[in-house]
């Protein structure tokens, strides 16, 4: 196994000894997780879009009951939290442990804001009697946003853990997970809340 890119690129591989994963930055196992999560969500998004084709009126009427502005604000909150996580990685690379910890807690705080907005949204929907069994749209709404919400909670736990047991590898791995949570929401928001 060569420790360089298979082209004329003179840079060393980020993870020599990891086979095909050698050319990926950060923890290779995190990339396995990111890829598998993306495939799972892609399958759900595709299924959602094709089921909508069969029940367009139900899906469009149900979508009108969601709050797309709150969803958009949550997108901005999560993307800003992602920026803070990326800045934490930059700080730890420069050896600034204290600054890294500050960025991590800033990312954590915005993650909590995302959760609060989501909980308010869930409470509103449940208060209106809109349950997962109401129709196919709401089954997918709760399934997809709930699955994503579980990832946000896990990510928050990971960030808190890493802020406590800080190291370059730990921060990079937690930030990669957090960016995956960003990425999934970037795809989820327009598909569930906006496309009609």
């Amino acid at each position: 196994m060569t420790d360089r890119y298979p082209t004329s690129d003179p840079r060393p591989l980020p993870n020599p000894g990891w086979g095909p994963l050698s050319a990926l930055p950060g923890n290779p196992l995190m990339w396995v997780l990111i890829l598998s999560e993306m495939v799972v969500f892609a399958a759900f998004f595709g299924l959602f879009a094709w089921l909508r084709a069969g029940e367009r009126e139900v899906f469009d009427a149900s979508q009108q009951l969601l709050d797309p502005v709150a969803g958009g604000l949550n997108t901005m909150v999560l993307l800003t939290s992602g920026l803070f996580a990326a800045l934490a990685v930059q700080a730890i690379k420069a050896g600034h442990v204290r600054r890294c910890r500050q960025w991590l807690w800033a990312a954590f705080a915005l993650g909590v804001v995302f959760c609060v907005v989501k909980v308010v949204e869930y409470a509103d929907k449940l208060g209106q009697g809109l349950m997962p069994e109401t129709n196919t749209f709401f089954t997918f709404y709760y399934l997809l946003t709930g699955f994503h919400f579980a990832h946000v909670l896990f990510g928050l736990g990971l960030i808190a853990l890493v802020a406590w047991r800080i190291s370059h590898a730990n921060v990079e791995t937690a930030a990669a997970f957090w960016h995956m949570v960003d990425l999934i929401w970037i795809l989820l928001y327009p598909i569930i809340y906006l496309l009609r």
Partner: protein
Amino acid sequence: MGAMQNALRNAATRRLLITWAVLMGLTLITMLSAQLGGEARLAALPLWSAGLLLATTFFKAHRVLMVYLGLSDASPAWRGAFVGLVLATLVLVASGYLVAQLA
């Protein structure tokens, strides 16, 4: 503020901040293209609007992969695999959307 000023000196950090600004702008474009105000919110999106919405979504996902996740430093094969997966997801969604509109 001191921490922010130091961070701004760093080229990599500047790239992150520019990417964040682009992502914020694209999120606003996504929301605007979805025509959330007034009566338009009750109607189906025009095709150009749905196309713009999916295009901005693709570009946002691409930026997160390349800059936030650092995939721009990976091999072309991995970059192609991840970008291809995002593209395939959005093509699948767009095809379902078109079938719904034409039905």
